[in-house]
């Protein structure tokens, strides 16, 4: 094992774990997400901005309410709640009612962060906890995908966004299927070019493979995350889907489709690399990423749902303490093995 800084001893349990709190790293993340926000607005209209504001408002308000007075300002200022809200918003379907998005933001911070004792203590990625809560709570609204529009519809806001709290949304247009849904239920593939550009049905910020990759590349060049995690996810998802594709090309999509459809790119770059909920050691990062890729391929091809990135990452989040334990560098002078 070689690390960039060989003098730095990385240990798991006793050290304080922190999220991306340095202002420099935080600014990079905002910069890398900006194109995604703009693309979401372009494809789905300015309603996308309303949705993102709703999740952010839910996240920040929950953070404010449950933080004791003296620490409130610091907690709001560290921007992590803001980031959680934005990341959650980017994974939502474009026609989701605002009240559900707000609730999702509140659940992300409340169930994903606060009840664990705040930032650094949470086992699961808060944004994904919020999304899992929303998917479990409103399964229909969370899987109703409005079709991507274009510049002509920039200022049209879908009526479903304004459903009153506790009421069902009424959708303006016939919902469209996501590329993954088309693949799973109609055995119909979507071209790589469309997946790269992103004018397909799907979550707000995840449809454009090109922009997500661009953001990832930027963060990589700025060394803001552990590159091993996305690399391992891409490699294992490509490998396992490739193997399945060889067995039955008609039923199982190939590696390229697997990588560029759904939220795999977005999840690998923005969710799985969360430093609080991913393993610390390089070996752990590889195991973590390979596990996510394998689970995504299994869930997509053999599960009941068309998409599995969220559950794959959450499951590997749960395995992170165990991975950390087994990949922790051995304390010098001790015998290997138990005892």
């Amino acid at each position, binding site marked *: 094992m070689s690390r960039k800084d060989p003098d730095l001893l990385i240990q798991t349990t006793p050290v304080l774990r922190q999220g991306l709190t340095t202002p420099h790293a935080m600014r990079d993340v905002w910069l890398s997400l900006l194109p995604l926000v703009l693309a979401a607005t372009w494809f789905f209209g300015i309603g996308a901005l309303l949705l993102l504001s709703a999740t952010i408002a839910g996240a920040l308000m929950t953070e404010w309410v449950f933080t004791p007075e003296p620490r409130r300002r610091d907690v709001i200022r560290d921007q992590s709640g803001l980031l959680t809200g934005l990341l959650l918003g980017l994974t939502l379907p474009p026609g989701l009612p605002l009240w559900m998005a707000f609730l999702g933001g509140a659940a992300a911070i409340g169930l994903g962060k606060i009840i664990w004792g705040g930032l650094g203590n949470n086992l699961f990625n808060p944004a994904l906890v919020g999304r899992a809560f929303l998917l479990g709570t409103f399964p*229909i609204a969370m899987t109703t995908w409005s079709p991507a529009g274009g510049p002509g519809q920039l200022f049209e806001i879908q009526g479903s966004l304004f459903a009153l709290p506790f009421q069902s949304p009424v959708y303006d247009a016939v919902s469209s299927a996501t590329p993954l849904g088309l693949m799973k239920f109609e055995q119909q593939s979507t071209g790589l070019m469309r997946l790269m550009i992103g004018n397909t049905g799907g979550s707000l910020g995840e449809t454009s493979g090109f922009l997500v990759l661009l953001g990832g590349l930027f963060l990589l060049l700025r060394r803001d995350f552990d590159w091993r995690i996305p690399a391992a996810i891409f490699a294992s998802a490509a490998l396992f889907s490739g193997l399945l594709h060889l067995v039955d090309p008609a039923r199982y999509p190939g590696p390229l489709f697997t990588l560029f459809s759904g939220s795999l790119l977005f999840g690998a770059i923005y969710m799985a690399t969360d430093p609080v909920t991913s393993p610390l050691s390089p070996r752990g990062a590889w195991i973590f990423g390979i596990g996510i890729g394998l689970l995504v391929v299994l869930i997509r091809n053999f599960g*009941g749902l068309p998409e599995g990135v969220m559950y794959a990452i959450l499951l590997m989040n749960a395995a992170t303490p165990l991975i950390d334990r087994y990949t922790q560098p051995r304390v010098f002078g001790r015998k290997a093995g138990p005892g």
Partner: protein
Amino acid sequence: MNQRVELPTANQPSSTRLALSVALAGLISGIAIIGIYEATLPTITANKARQLREAVFKVLPGVSRMQQLGFVDGSLKPVDVPIEDLTLYGGYDNGGRFIGYAIPSDGPGFQDTIALLYGWLPREGRIVGMEILDSRETPGLGDKIYKDAVFVANFSALIPDPDIVTVKKGTRSAPNEVDAITGATISSKAVVRIINEGQARWRGKLPAPGQEPSLPDPAESPEAGPGSG
């Protein structure tokens, strides 16, 4: 409180006494359980029979009398005890004329086994009703297989030739097609598959039209008489 110290070995009851007290308690408990069983059995049996009768009448419109039929020794006969997998219910109108069969079938759903009953008119080759008897599908989604009247209405006029299939909601165009429930495709498909399996199981086992087992004299078998429920 008394501070008298109890000597551990002083007045230990003998093991015979211990065994006797447990045996006595078990005996009294057994008598109580037999008592409650005997007391509630008639109501429980009546409830079950009434539920079954109501389901049969629901899936076979126009039926007011029924009897349990089983496939024994190569033919369909009235039976008192259900035959594993090969039991169905014959439905008759007030005059005792045969109308159709109510066929029970079950199979895996999204969460757990779905058990259902469907009404089959052999002379017309039509399915005229479907009732879910038991299921644990997801509340709010899968449970629409019995809560969504539009979905249930799919089964009031189906011609299962070829096998029934599910189609996307609103695109039903042939008499063997069923509109699936949005968001509960798996449960919808399960219901259709269970009915198809029921059809496959009974294929070639039902008597030719006109040869159906007739209703015994109501006087002989009061349970098959006009429904009280």
